[in-house]
């Protein structure tokens, strides 16, 4: 049974290797004005890379069981780019809760093969590109 499961995971992983998806995020600013952001998410091995305006903004590391085990964000600080690492379980949970980056949404797509319909108000899958 374990072998069958591993085979399924492998098949699915192979299926999503090199895939790029485009996600539109719907937000409101602090004055409650709506705005949107177009995210590009590229999967390479067990890492999801998140791009905004063609700039790498974050990487999400996914374990075999589909759990996010590490997030690396590329933040600006005092004029320089800085790696911002989140690897504690409670901090990852906190970061996922903010829903600024479509981390969970992309993870669901690449791991489960479908998007979380509950989050369709916040994010929408608008394009899938095969490599």
């Amino acid at each position, binding site marked *: 049974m374990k072998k069958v499961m591993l085979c399924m995971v492998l098949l699915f992983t192979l299926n999503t290797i090199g895939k790029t998806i485009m996600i539109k995020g719907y*937000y409101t*600013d*602090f004055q*409650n004005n709506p*705005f949107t*952001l177009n995210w590009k998410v590229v999967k390479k091995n067990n890492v999801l890379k998140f791009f*905004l305006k063609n700039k790498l*903004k974050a990487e999400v590391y996914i374990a075999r069981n589909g759990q996010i085990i590490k997030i690396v*964000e590329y*933040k*600006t*600080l*005092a*004029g320089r780019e*800085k790696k*911002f*690492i*989140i690897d*504690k379980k*409670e*901090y990852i949970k*906190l*970061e996922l*809760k*903010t829903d*600024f*980056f479509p981390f969970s949404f992309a993870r669901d797509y690449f791991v489960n093969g479908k998007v979380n319909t509950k989050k369709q108000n916040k994010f929408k899958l608008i394009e899938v590109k095969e490599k």
Partner: protein
Amino acid sequence: MKRLVTFLLLMIFFFYANAQTTETVEITTRPWNGYWWPLNNNGLCTGQDYNKYPSPMEKYDMALNQKYHATTWEINNHYFPDAPYWWGHCNGWAVASILEQEPTHKSTFNSIVFYVGDLKGLLSECHQGASGTTYGTRYMGDDNQQAFDDINPLDLQNVLKMYLKDNNTPILIDADPTKEIWTYPVYKYELSYTDEGNTRHCTLTVYCATDSYDNGILNPDDFGDTHSFTKTYTYDLTLDSNGDPVSGEWTGNSVNDHPDFAWYPDNDAGKNPYVSLAQVHSIMSNDYSDEDDPNEPDNDFEHAKPLDTNKIYRIENDDYFTMFIEPGEDVTLSMTFNDYFHYEVVKYYDSEQNYLGFFPFNSIDKDVNYRFTGGNEITNYYLNVKYPVTGDYNDNYMFKAHENYTKIIIPHTLETSYWDNFVYAGFIPYTKKNSDTNEETEILNANGSYVGVFNENNRMVPETMLPTIQFSPAFTEIPLNDSSNNTPEWIKVNTTDAHVKLLSFYQSHGDGSMGYFYSIQPAKRFVLPHVPSHTNYWWYGIVIVNPSHFKSINVFYKLYDYHKHILKEGTLYIPQYGKIVDVFENIFPDVEMGQTSYIEFYSKDNFIVSALYGTRNHRELAYVPADSRFINEGEKVYVTKDLMPQTDNPWAGIAIVNPTESYSKIYISVVNNHNAYTRYYLTLYPHEKKVDVLENFLPDGYDYSTLERIEFEVIKGSISMFALYGDHDQGMLASLIPPQWNNGMETYFFPNIQGHSLSTTLKIKNEANYSIHATVYAIDANGNEIEHQTYTLSNFELRSIDISGDFSTDPSQIKTLKVYSSRFITPFAEIKSDDGKFYEIIGPVFKKETVLIQNN
């Protein structure tokens, strides 16, 4: 012994159980202090509460030679004198303070000197629209208690640990849990706690950089050591069986005073489209330079240049300017500087270069200023700005002219053999009412000085008018040309009273078209509600005037199409006293007139705009002054059918546009000759226009022959509208800004135009469904009422008043006709030639007002 051991063990247990644990974390890269630039005075564009003139935004525009785009945008979008006190750029500054390196030296870019404070302000503007990862929900002031309670203290504690402790990174907090936002960067925290059972009692102190310096403002050279304040919060965390916190809640004062949310900017964006972060970085990278300003005036009397109060000057040596003051002008000219001990910085001289004095220092406004008042003739002056101006912030300077008088302007005059252009002037009496004592004073005349402007540097006062003339209710023709018979470009009256009125009439000698223009006040925003689409039939011209001889101005324009989109936008530069007049296709050569719905003009300075409508067969002409006032929510205007020419084939058209960014709703009442009202709503979306002939404003099946008038009540938003009246066969055309609906008891004034082969017929329309009385007064050349007649008009009657038959006074001695009724009437004057070639109507625009004044 056993007891002793037990006691000691218990003591040790309690000691550890209640021991306080403390953690202090501070990051190595501190945020920098700046300023939150409140929107109610926005020093970024106004200089208020900062370094006055020039403001950081003005410097940016000048350095990039972009004609005040950034400043104007900022004034229009981020400067609201009535804004709630907490609106400002705190988020822009807070984001800049962590994302950007602190500016630490002044720099020179295209001869403009930027101080550290200027650069901090520009960086704040560049980051004003940032958004990003947000922990907690913003509380909007509603009944969402959950949004008020969060950010949950456990989440806040984790955020601080994640950012400051694990990643050596600051975090932004909104320190106010209410709907107000006060954003600050946190760079240090102290956390102490004691455990009691499964509860952890926590005290958290956060260190935030301040959004100003010690005196509550930002000085131009403020940088360096981080000034900070602290906020201390208390909360309890609930621990699981492993001693790990799983939830938390605020305690003590922190229940109502805790951060609303925390965030870090991940999507950076400025709001002002005319300020670029890359450009600000480029300015910051420059060093300060001692080079002289190539744009500054030359350095002696001989090379003095005309003063331009919209220019930023740089002082490296003495600067000399020329300027003049007209009769009737009253202008306070000021210059801000920062050295209060050497204030003989601006000296003024007469045209013979004789020293007259210096601008005295004004301790209230912290500037030097001098009030110039006009004499009997135009007076020329030289100004000299002395170098060196000692002090820290005097590399750049600007003058400001505060005009303590009113300009009455006709923006267009004509000098060709084809046109006969003549001008009438008069004064509309009004009642001045003291709002404290209710004491009323009738104002019957005012003084003013009449000035013709030939071009930006050449002007005259007609010799026959010098030095001051008194304007009375007697409308009188005044000379247009000077003694050499030269015609000015445009004309103005300098006065203290806006009730002085000018009318300029234009008659073509060829095909018989006629138009007229009455004076309007300069404003900062105008709308031309309609550009004709039948370009084969209509020509359309525009005239724009800069009414100031102290400054050049930039006028921004937006042309909207019929899909409510911007077709074209751009800028028109107008020098001091300059005028732009041309047909549409020459002003906007790359835009199809037929695709243009309407035009909006705006500037940070006052200006005047008007449209000219004409037919290509040259038989019809009408001037339509641009609208700066608009018809706003709660106001009601109307269009009367009887203003149409009483001919066989008359027509009337109405143009209405919504020039705003939100929808407008109009309650339209169609009134027939039985006083029956048929009502409907008209909704206009942003930038939508409705233009049509009068009958198409009627509901389906409505009998047009019964129509008396249409009322337009704006119940939401603002609109701009006007009406055109004409005749399909006879080449008549007249424009009208629809008058305000009223209940009567109004007094109207009309010029009795004579000569130029014209005669004036006064007409009165009874707008009521019953008989009314209206009284007509004849006013002579001295402004006195010499005779009156009262008329009885039946319901909805249109009556032509026979001046020569009903009045004993010779009509040529009557200069003005005054009309009064206690009921709702529409009086108007029909001015035409006997042969019908020339035709105009003057609507009920000159109305007596009551002006409230306060003792103080």
